[in-house]
């Protein structure tokens, strides 16, 4: 049951729901900006606003880590977007997107950032950002002078093997407060009013996501926070990893009950975890390691969701993850993103044939490593038409580029993407 008012046109939402139900909708639905893994770099959002002749305004950086720009409703309409994200107000750097002020990027673009987006420029010319906006804490992110995104600064305390306590890797996970639930509800109501399908990013449910391991949102992280050390831990300290995941899931299940108690079945899909298992040509770990360390915990979260809600579960993993697809299905994921067809064994036709009955492909629409940033608009068009044909047949497809559209991508190529999806939909 939903509380949508009758006057809201739900064509967009219905289209997405049909696709998620593995039936062919009237058109291939489109997502841009619904999640932090299907967004657009702020500089490209600004370019798109200009291209479509929209009201000149500074674009909000709502996800500072990857410098993703908020896609306002007017741009969503211009691009024919069918999905609305409820992504939460707290950023990866531990501050909230509550109020906005202008800021100039190192490349000279004026944007809007949260008041707590606190940075300094070091002697190399790099931009450093502070966790929770706290300038007295060591910075937790760095954007190189010539870069376009932040990356985490590893702040690894010395590791004393005997002193390692999984509790130290859990500091960032906590039960949601009443005020957090109020925010979710407010954001959801706004999203519902658009008539688009709703995907929510659920907090604290990413297990071992290497972007979160260094805890960019904490002022003084403890535990295992170094990226390499974390990968080493999968082999050397699997019990430690299991205990972190088990405790994290315990909190997650309580939060799921709280969230569902507040929003009910008004979410259409939920992103729980963006841990990457694939590299360009291979995998970060074996399927056996995945089954041992991740599957049981993913299953607990997904089972809870399927037992109590109508939400579809969304898994993001970059790279060559064909070998994990069956495991993803078995542990309860309904949707896979970003479907990196440019990686080994990730050919669109093969994925659709082998896994299309069980997984919705949310992504795979255009290659953001090669074709989109460096190809011609014609090459972009050709690829988009082909991917819509392959993935869209029989439903089970939400169009999105393969991961966020990166800085430096020609705006005309992004427009070519939108035009090509519309062309496909017309035919």
């Amino acid at each position: 049951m939903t509380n949508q008012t009758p006057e809201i046109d739900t064509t967009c939402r219905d289209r997405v729901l049909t696709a998620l139900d593995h039936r062919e909708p009237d058109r291939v639905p489109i997502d841009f900006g619904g999640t932090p893994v299907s967004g657009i770099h702020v500089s490209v959002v600004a370019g798109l606003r200009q291209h479509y002749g929209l009201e000149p305004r500074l674009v909000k950086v709502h996800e500072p880590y990857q410098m993703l720009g908020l896609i306002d409703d007017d741009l969503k309409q211009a691009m024919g977007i069918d999905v609305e994200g409820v992504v939460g107000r707290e950023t990866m750097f531990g501050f909230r997107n509550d109020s906005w002020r202008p800021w100039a990027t190192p490349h000279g673009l004026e944007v809007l950032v949260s008041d707590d987006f606190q940075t300094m420029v070091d002697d190399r010319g790099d931009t450093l950002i502070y966790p929770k906006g706290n300038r007295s804490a060591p910075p937790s992110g760095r954007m190189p002078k010539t870069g376009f995104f932040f990356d985490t600064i590893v702040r690894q305390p010395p590791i004393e093997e005997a002193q390692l306590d999984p509790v130290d890797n859990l500091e960032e996970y906590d039960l949601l407060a009443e005020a957090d639930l109020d925010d979710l509800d407010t954001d959801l109501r706004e999203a519902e009013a658009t008539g688009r399908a709703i995907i929510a990013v659920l907090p604290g449910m990413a297990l071992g996501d290497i972007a979160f391991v260094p805890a960019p949102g904490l002022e003084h992280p403890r535990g295992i926070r170094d990226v390499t050390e974390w990968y080493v831990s999968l082999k050397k300290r699997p019990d430690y990893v299991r205990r972190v995941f088990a405790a994290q899931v315990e909190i997650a299940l309580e939060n799921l009950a709280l969230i569902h108690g507040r929003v009910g079945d008004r979410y259409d899909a939920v992103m729980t975890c963006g841990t990457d298992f694939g590299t360009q040509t291979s995998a970060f770990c074996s399927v056996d390691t995945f089954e041992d360390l991740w599957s049981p915990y993913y299953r607990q979260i997904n089972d809870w969701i399927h037992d109590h809600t109508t939400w579809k579960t969304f898994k993001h993993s970059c790279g060559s993850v064909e070998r994990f697809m069956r495991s993803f299905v078995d542990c309860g994921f309904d949707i896979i993103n970003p479907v990196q067809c440019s990686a080994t064994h990730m050919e669109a036709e093969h994925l659709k044939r082998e896994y299309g009955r069980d997984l919705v492909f949310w992504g795979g629409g255009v290659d953001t490593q090669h074709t989109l940033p460096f190809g011609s608009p014609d090459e972009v068009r050709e690829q988009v038409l082909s991917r819509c044909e392959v993935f869209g047949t029989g439903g089970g497809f939400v169009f999105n580029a393969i991961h966020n559209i990166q800085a430096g991508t020609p705006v005309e190529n992004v427009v070519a993407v939108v035009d090509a999806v519309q062309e496909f939909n017309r035919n």
Partner: protein
Amino acid sequence: MNMTLLEELYEAIVDGDDDLAVELTRKGLDDGIQPITLIDDAMIPAMTEAGRRFETEEYFVPELLVAGRAIKAGLEILRPLLSAGDLHHAGRVVIGTVQGDLHDIGKNLVAVMFEGAGFDVIDMGTDVSPAEVVAAIEEHNPDLVALSALLTTTMLSMQAIIEAIDTAGLRDDVRVLVGGAPMNEERAKEFGADAYADNANAAVRTALELVAAA
């Protein structure tokens, strides 16, 4: 099974058991085994095997990292006992992640494999500018420069670095090997690199070939 110490050391490294690798390296020295024998007959073959398993997907990132730690732990014990020539017979390599890019998991894997193959590795870290690479070549006189990039946006820095090496008149002095997610053979050629490798083991194999052919 009655394994020799060299076989046990080999197994310890392949299995990524750094404590055992240290213990066996010390024991080997106590037993009178020459340091270079420990390296040539156990450590390097072990790392070669770990690399082979990585390339054939019996091993993945964690297994290769722990094997790398095990060989490093053993080499640390032997280092003071060896001449640089003994330790670094394969050549010298300057390695780094290119300007604008802070991602180093792949670069670190390649660096550890180079070390395991007997290269003297000068690791410049991440976000390395063209000027810094040129300065490193001038300072260290390497046989090889190895460049990594994860991001599509930073990949073009590789081209800038190779051009800077050329402009500095050093291009004929070094071979350039490139790798990383957005790279491929075609791009490598386009950027003016000598070779491309798509995984850590292939990087070592290619590096040895490039140095041998120089």
